């Protein structure tokens, strides 16, 4: 499977760090970063999740000229069960996420992202009906073909929205 090209950029790292409420200078201040053990700006631990930005077909991003299931004139822009992921009456939620760091990405890296499916399993949930879990393994390799981060995500589709008690 051809991987998406994920250029790691300093501005994206700065904005990502802000979005997870992390004001550590190593994520935006090059002069400060030079004085640290690492010696340069690095990406926060969960930054590679933003490779979704570089997946041209990512299903949770509105695309020009295509229906979008979020609200506009109406509470949803698509007919029932036309929307992908997290749509009406339950849908997809993120259950687990695991990272193994071979090193931490830095500005200038150009990562190649390859995704392969893992296991699938089912469970009966008290608060949301039948749960279907599916695993995805994502490898992020750098411009030299070296593995940088290995990620394993588990998504769950629920029969109905999770009860809030």
């Amino acid at each position, binding site marked *: 499977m051809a991987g998406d090209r994920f250029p790691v950029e300093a501005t994206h790292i700065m904005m990502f760090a*802000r*979005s997870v409420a992390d004001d*550590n200078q190593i994520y935006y201040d090059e002069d400060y970063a030079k004085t640290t053990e690492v010696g340069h700006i690095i990406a*926060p631990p969960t930054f590679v999740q933003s490779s979704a930005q570089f997946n041209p077909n*990512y299903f949770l991003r509105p695309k020009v000229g295509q229906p979008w299931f979020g*609200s506009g004139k109406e509470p949803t822009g698509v007919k029932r069960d036309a929307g992908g992921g997290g749509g009406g009456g339950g849908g997809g939620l*993120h259950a687990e996420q695991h990272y193994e760091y071979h090193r931490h990405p830095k500005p200038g890296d150009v990562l190649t992202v390859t995704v392969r499916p893992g296991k699938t399993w089912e469970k009966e949930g008290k608060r949301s009906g039948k749960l279907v879990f599916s695993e995805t393994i994502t490898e992020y390799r750098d411009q030299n073909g070296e593995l940088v981060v290995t990620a394993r995500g588990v998504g769950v589709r629920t029969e109905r929205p999770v009860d809030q008690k």
Partner: protein
Amino acid sequence: MALKASQLKVGDTYTECLVEDLKRTQLVMYAGTSGDYNPLHTDEIFTTKVAGYPSVFAHGMLTMGMTGRMLTNYVGDGRLTKYGVRFTSQVWPGDTLHSTATVESVEDGIVNLKVETRNQNDAVVLSGYAAARVDS
């Protein structure tokens, strides 16, 4: 500011407040940088009227990202070798979160940590583990 193996004991803990009164705008910021524009996180009308939830709720990965700040503040920058979590309960606007790392073992220059993030009602919203390189 890296940790030293000789100064760590099993059961040591480190806690940080991740956020007080989580704002919807923070969810918008996370959607914008991560690229996950699922309306469940930013679109109150869709989420309440179509998806059937009481309000928008945080991306699990936002909680994992904020918990990551607690970890890197504790173990030092660039030191994490593993970090994994389960999302055990949803996080809502208005929530206040605290996160704790607990030392489970220290061996071969690696500290293994248990990681837990709780909300203002003491419910666990994220539970997991991390490993990091430490100095001798």
